[in-house]
């Protein structure tokens, strides 16, 4: 297994304010990587730099062997992403929406029906997105991110705002994708979700990667043997539980 996501000294500053501090991250191919952090810790900024839509002010990002931003086009062919900002073309139907993105990716049209079925939207393919519920939009966003059969899937808070059934549906889909070999980079602040899905976890706070490893490794690092991810997270980020 090789490292499919590699960052070296990745940094971002806005108007002299450093928001990401020299982030060194390695994610192996096939991993289900959980990226945890309190609000404003820099999760979304990091994902945006990893997906090539935000330029870092320092350091490097390599995705599936392609360095950003020079080999952006090759890198984005390997990745799919469900960004935090979930804008949809409300006037399109689900099928039209996926057809538009399939054309941008150069993906085959039959993939659309396949993904609509996989995300449970097959019976709503001719419905306007403006009529979709939040959960249906989330599933459509995931379907869009999978159009190009990505080797890496970035998800920024994919289950936020969903009811338990909706969360369960998406988690089941992500597990299946990971079993099929897709590397998943999941940013979330739902600790139960991360601990049940992810094989390895990175915790970011105030723009710094403060811990990284499997749940057992994090327990050792935080000196909380048998502790839950919530306890570990709160201790490491200076929360109330210590």
């Amino acid at each position, binding site marked *: 297994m090789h490292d499919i996501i590699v960052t070296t000294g990745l940094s971002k500053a806005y108007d002299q304010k450093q928001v990401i501090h020299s982030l060194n991250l390695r994610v192996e191919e096939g991993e289900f990587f959980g990226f945890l952090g309190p609000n404003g810790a820099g999760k979304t900024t990091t994902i945006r730099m990893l997906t090539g839509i935000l330029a870092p002010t320092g350091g490097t990002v390599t995705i599936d062997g392609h360095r950003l931003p020079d080999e952006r086009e090759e890198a984005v062919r390997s990745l799919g992403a469900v960004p935090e900002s979930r804008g949809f073309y409300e006037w399109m*139907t689900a099928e039209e929406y996926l057809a538009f993105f399939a054309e941008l990716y150069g993906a085959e049209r039959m993939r659309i029906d396949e993904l609509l079925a996989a995300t449970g939207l097959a019976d709503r393919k*001719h*419905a306007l997105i403006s009529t979709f519920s939040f959960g249906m939009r989330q599933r459509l966003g995931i379907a869009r991110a999978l159009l190009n059969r990505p080797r890496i899937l970035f998800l920024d808070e994919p289950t936020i705002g969903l009811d338990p059934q909706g969360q369960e549906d998406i988690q089941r889909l992500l597990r299946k994708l990971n079993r099929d070999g897709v590397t998943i980079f999941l940013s979330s602040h739902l600790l139960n979700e991360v601990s049940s899905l992810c094989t390895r976890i990175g915790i970011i706070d105030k723009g710094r990667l403060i811990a990284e490893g499997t749940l057992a490794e994090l327990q050792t690092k935080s000196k909380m043997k048998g502790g839950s991810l919530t306890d570990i997270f709160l201790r490491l980020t200076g929360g109330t539980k210590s």
Partner: protein
Amino acid sequence: MSRWSSLLVLVGVLLNAVVAGADTAPPLSLRILSSHTLNGTAGDYVTVHGTITDTGDAALSDITTYLSLVDTEAKLPVDLEDWSAEKGQYIGSMGVNQTLPLDWKIHFVKAGNYSLTIVAQSGAHDLPCVSPVTRFVVLPKVNLNPANVLPVAFLTPLVLLLLLFLATRIRKVEE
């Protein structure tokens, strides 16, 4: 009648003759030469050709000529503001039997029936001298056909609305 009364009558007649001389028009002959070419269509530019001749036995000075246009349907004089850039022409002096050309470029601004005269005034005379009246007709503009614009103005938005409506209908959308 005494000799004195006869003398008074003679002086009176002579004085009357002098006062009457001040009320006469200058001995000028004015003519519009282009009466047959004046008819036209609204929007046309035409030139009014005319002449002025000193028909008296003395030179005249301080002569000014101008056009006078009357709308014969409305029975009103026309303001020449839009019709001609040069409303008056100052001639100055004219010798005995001298003839000078007079040209005015006018724009037929509005369709209708008109009568045109050239008027001349001399500084030494209190009455103007006027040319014979020339009547002409300005036809309405026909090169723009308003009948064609009506179907275009009504049909284009309607056809467009229909096409756009059809374009939205061919889309497969589930309610």
